[in-house]
C-alpha cells in the first residue's frame, strides 16, 4: 500500500489508518454527490463529466492500494481476498435493490407507486442510481475496504 498521496501538489501521509478512513468517507461523499448531480441535472454533458470524475476518484484509490494482481506477498494476497469477500455481498445487495426498484419484478417490488410527482420522478430514477452505485462499488469497494481496515503502517527504517 502506498503511504503517500500527492493531491494537487500537496503530499498527504496515508500511513495512519485515521487519515485513510477520512479519505474513504470523503471519496464516497463525492461519489454520492456525483450520482446525485448526474440524475438531478438532466444534461448529457454533466453526465460525462460526472463519469470522468468518478473514474478520477477511483484512480486515487488505485494509486494508494494498487491492484489485486500486484499483491507482492502472502499477507497482501490474504488482505485482497478478505476485501473481495467483504465487498461482493454489498454489490449483490445493490443489484437486488435495483431489480426491486425497477419494477421488473412487479410482485416483489418494495416501493409502492407514489402520487407525489417529485417522488414519482425519484422512483423512476432510483433503479438507475442503484445500478450506478453498484458500478462504483464494483470498481472501488475492495480498495476502500483495504484502506479502511489496514492498521497504521510503520516506516521501512
Amino acid at each position, binding site marked *: *500500500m502506498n503511504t503517500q498521496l500527492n493531491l494537487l501538489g500537496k503530499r498527504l501521509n496515508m500511513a495512519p489508518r485515521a487519515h485513510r478512513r477520512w479519505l474513504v468517507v470523503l471519496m464516497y461523499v463525492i461519489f454520492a454527490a456525483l450520482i446525485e448531480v448526474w440524475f438531478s441535472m438532466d444534461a448529457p454533458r454533466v453526465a460525462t463529466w460526472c463519469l470522468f470524475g468518478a473514474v478520477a476518484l477511483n484512480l486515487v484509490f488505485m494509486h494508494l492500494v494498487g491492484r489485486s494482481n500486484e499483491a*507482492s*506477498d*502472502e*499477507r*497482501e494476497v490474504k488482505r485482497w481476498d478478505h476485501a473481495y469477500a467483504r465487498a461482493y455481498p454489498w454489490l449483490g445487495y445493490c443489484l437486488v435493490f435495483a431489480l426491486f426498484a425497477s419494477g421488473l419484478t412487479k410482485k416483489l417490488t418494495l416501493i409502492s407507486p407514489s402520487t407525489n410527482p417529485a417522488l414519482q420522478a425519484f422512483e423512476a430514477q432510483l433503479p438507475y442510481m442503484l445500478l450506478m452505485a453498484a458500478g462504483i462499488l464494483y470498481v472501488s469497494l475492495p480498495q476502500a475496504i483495504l484502506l479502511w481496515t489496514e*492498521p497504521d*503502517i*510503520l*516506516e*521501512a*527504517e
Partner: protein
Amino acid sequence: MSENIGSSGPGESGLYNRIAVLRAERGIGRQDLADAVGVNYQTIGFLERGNYGPSLKLAFQIAEFFGLPVEAVFSTKPFRPLSEQVYGSRVVEAEMENRR
C-alpha cells in the same frame, strides 16, 4: 505487561514474536529483512505488532534469516526478555556464590 517484554504481539494474530528485538539487536532494517524473505516491508511491521500471523513458510524463512530455531522467534506464549534468558541463570548463580 511485564510478561510481554522482549516480544511483540499477540495482537490479531494470536502469536508472539521477537522480530523487532532481533532486528534492533543486529541493526537490521525492516526493508532489509523484507528483501531477504521476499515480502513487503509493511508486512514485517504488521508481523512485529502481531497484526498478522505468518505462514509456516514465512515463519521458517524469518527464523533461518536470524539463524535461530523457529520457536526462538515465534511463540504462542509471551517470551521472557532475552536479557533475562541469557543472563538470568548467571545472576542467580552469582547471588548463590555471594551467599556462600
